[in-house]
């Protein structure tokens, strides 16, 4: 997967030189290990900044909203599904995009890696197909990459992009029998009291920084409901009820749209598993509408259309 970097740079250089795209969106190495950052490349000379490894967990679709120029962009499975969602929601036109597809083998969970080295400062991390080599001033450890995948990548069934104009490598085999909703089912079995306890504890560290919202490509409203003050939909302090309200509403805005890319969890400074909210909704839309977000450019999303046979058991 690491060897994609050279191919990505070549492709970006070619597209920019030929003038086929005005900007190429990809990742470059961040200033600290495991924190690759999005990069908007505008000239062929800058293309060698581009980088690809297992730390490209931010969703590039965030940088597409309402752009007007011709854009080259790299896309793995989940990012491409968000592009489809963006196109379906009229945030960008398909013709504007030149999608460079990446068969993705999953991103690594930077928190799990930090835990594995007992939170000692990591100065450098290298990877090959199977192993991560983590170095600090007084340690040098090898870890199996497979054991440190982000939790959403473990259950991923869309490694390959849904839409692309060219691929950097051959598509890889998709996971067969993944059971994506095992954790949701476990919570569904709980009593209301235990559920409430679970979610209250989960968000108790939330500092309302809204990093989850900002990292999410679905959250492109010009003014978010959390920032509005007239009317003020939700309290802005870290009062537990306000915080819960924020998380419920944020998740609900993603209903039928979330691709489980995991960017929200990745960027959370306090490590909240807020995918537990969106996953429940993903499970529900799958059960009630047989819908998975971002797979089809032609079909309208379930919350966008009415069908006489829509699920309506909850209405008296």
């Amino acid at each position, binding site marked *: 997967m690491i060897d994609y970097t050279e191919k990505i740079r070549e492709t970006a250089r070619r597209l920019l030189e030929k003038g086929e795209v005005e900007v190429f969106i990809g990742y470059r190495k961040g200033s600290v290990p495991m924190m690759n950052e999005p990069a908007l490349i505008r000239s062929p000379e800058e293309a060698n900044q581009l980088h690809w490894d297992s730390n490209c967990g931010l969703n590039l679709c965030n940088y597409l909203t309402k752009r007007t120029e011709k854009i080259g962009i790299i896309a793995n499975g989940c990012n491409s599904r968000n592009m489809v969602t963006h196109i379906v929601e009229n945030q960008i036109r398909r013709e504007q995009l030149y999608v460079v597809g990446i068969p993705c083998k999953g991103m690594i969970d930077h928190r799990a890696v930090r835990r594995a080295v007992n939170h000692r400062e990591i100065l450098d991390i290298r990877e090959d197909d199977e192993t991560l080599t983590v170095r600090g001033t007084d340690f040098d450890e090898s870890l199996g990459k497979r054991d440190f995948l982000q939790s959403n990548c473990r259950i991923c069934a869309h490694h390959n992009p849904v839409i692309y104009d060219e691929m950097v490598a051959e598509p890889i085999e998709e996971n067969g029998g993944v059971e994506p909703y095992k954790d*949701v089912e476990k*919570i*569904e079995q709980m009593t*209301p*009291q*235990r*559920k*409430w*306890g*679970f*979610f*209250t504890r989960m968000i108790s560290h939330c500092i309302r920084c809204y990093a989850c919202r900002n990292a999410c490509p679905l959250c492109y409203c010009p003014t978010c409901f959390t920032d509005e003050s007239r009317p003020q939909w939700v*309290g802005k*302090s*870290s*009062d*537990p*009820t*306000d915080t*819960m*309200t924020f998380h*419920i509403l944020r*998740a*609900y805005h993603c*209903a039928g749209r979330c691709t489980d890319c995991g960017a929200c969890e990745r960027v959370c400074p306090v490590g909240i598993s807020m995918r537990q*909210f969106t996953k*429940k*909704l993903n499970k*529900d839309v799958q059960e009630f509408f047989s819908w998975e977000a971002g797979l089809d450019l032609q079909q309208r999303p379930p919350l966008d259309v009415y069908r006489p046979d829509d699920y309506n058991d*909850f*209405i*008296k």
Partner: protein
Amino acid sequence: MKGLLEHIGIESGRLHFSWVSSAEATKFVEVAQSIAAEVKALGPAKYLIKKRAEVA
């Protein structure tokens, strides 16, 4: 929405949805009564209630 709220611990039976036309007075009464009865049976809500701010 109901699914998500119940998933985080709001008791099933506290949240109701209904579609009542302005011409369906009888249905309105029935729905209102049954909701009131179900919610009463559950007792006062414990969760997702904003009390006085816990932070200054």
